[in-house]
């Protein structure tokens, strides 16, 4: 696992018992994970238990710790990789274990977080439909045709929009048929 110099330095500060005693370290670790996983959490800076630490250093350490954790989750690093990395930063065994346990505990959530950072085509979330029967219009009387109006809800990066289109019964059957083909082959692929 490759880490930049600044991150290493920050980690070394975290490891340093002069900067973080064991109690502060525990609280600090907890806060770091919280800040990644929960949407609202207490800020590391200005936390009552960590007031005695220089705030600039604290900020640096926080950044370094979060970077390290995310790198670990991204690479799906195993225990030996993480341990060796932390030992390079002069972590004591105790602290390594603490950090590693918290990491395992929060791993699923962190993975979920990272996988949602993604560019992709607009993602369909829902479909609404309307069936109507056209009797006449300004250009043609006695039309007497049923038709569907379909609206697909799509989302992209949080912003949602709609795709509206109309179709006849045959076209809708064609659409549903093709979607069923896709679903079937999905099932087959998952079984094989």
């Amino acid at each position: 696992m490759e880490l930049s110099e600044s991150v290493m330095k920050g980690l070394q500060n975290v490891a340093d018992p002069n900067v973080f005693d064991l109690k502060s370290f525990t609280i600090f670790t907890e806060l770091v994970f919280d800040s990644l996983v929960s949407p609202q959490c207490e800020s590391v800076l200005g936390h009552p238990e960590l007031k005695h630490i220089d705030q600039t250093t604290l900020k640096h350490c926080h950044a370094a710790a979060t970077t390290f954790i995310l790198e670990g989750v991204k690479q799906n690093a195993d225990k030996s990789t993480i341990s060796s990395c932390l030992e390079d930063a002069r972590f004591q065994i105790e602290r390594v274990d603490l950090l590693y346990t918290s990491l395992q505990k929060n791993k699923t959530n962190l993975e979920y977080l990272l996988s949602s950072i993604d560019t992709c085509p607009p993602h369909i979330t829902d479909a609404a439909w309307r069936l109507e029967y056209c009797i006449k219009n300004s250009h043609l009387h006695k039309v007497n045709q049923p038709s569907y109006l379909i609206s697909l809800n799509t989302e992209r990066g949080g912003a949602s929009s709609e795709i509206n289109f109309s179709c006849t019964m045959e076209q809708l059957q064609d659409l549903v048929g093709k979607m069923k083909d896709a679903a079937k082959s999905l099932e087959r692929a998952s079984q094989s």
Partner: protein
Amino acid sequence: MPLRFSVTGGKCLLETWEGLNEFLREDTNKQFSIISLSNNCYANDTQLYTSHSSRMIRRELLTSLLDEGPPSSTQFPAHAADVGQLYTIVNFPGFSLPMHIYLLNMIWIHKGQARRRHPLGIQLQKMLLVLSEEHKEHLGFLSEVDSAVVGEFGRIAVEFLKKGSNPKIFEGAARKLNVPAESVQHGVEGLMYLLTESAKLMVSEGDFQDSVLVLGFSEELNQLLLQLYLENRKEIRQILGKLAPSLPHYHNLEWRLDVQVSSRALRQQLKPSVSLKLVLEDGESLRARVLQTDPSTLQHLIQELERALAELKSSHCRRVLRNIK
């Protein structure tokens, strides 16, 4: 308000019932093509006409009415019920119709616009074309040229409807016929309008003939116009259908199964997804949209759209589709 009977086979206009009486006495052997009743104000509104087979019955009824008073049920046992109510007044929109006139045509007059089939085969139509004076004038030009030319004009009119108009053709034709180009243009445009209006309202054969009757053309010309209308009606309706406002139409769907294995933010993933390419048709152009969905949403979409399809087969829907025609 004088009631007017217009009789098409003989092409005369009878202003009063006495006139009708006279006419019938003289021409008892002549076949009417239509007996229609029109009122000055509602000439375009309703028209009653008889079908061929019932004509003879009607004539009998009519002559006997005028000769001997109301027919008795013994004379016309099939219509006994109606004969019994001879003095009921049936209401037309705007004026009342004495029963014997109703009997004359044996229609059921309804306030709505429904077309009803009477056992004798008479239909109350509401689909008569309104031709403005200007329009009639333009079309009047057609009676001045012979039918081959009218046929040609008809063909040109249909071409123009399909592909757009080409003014140069007018000049050529005008020179050949030795008439001003404007009359040719008006004639052809008049024809185009006649065809589009008839196609739009989906007028039946009989109604079309009646509408054209107003122009006073020869029988041959009328037939020609009728043929032109019937042959091209479907296509003209298709063209008109494209003019109506509409949303993009579904054209095609392509799909692809994907599994995301890695991304910049997270290595070692296994995320299945379905990529869809939805092709929509908007007017003339095709537009493709690339979309994505996950397997569970795909199932949900399929369920929802199947529900939509099933709705068309429900009894409520079937009832509506059956009854609105």
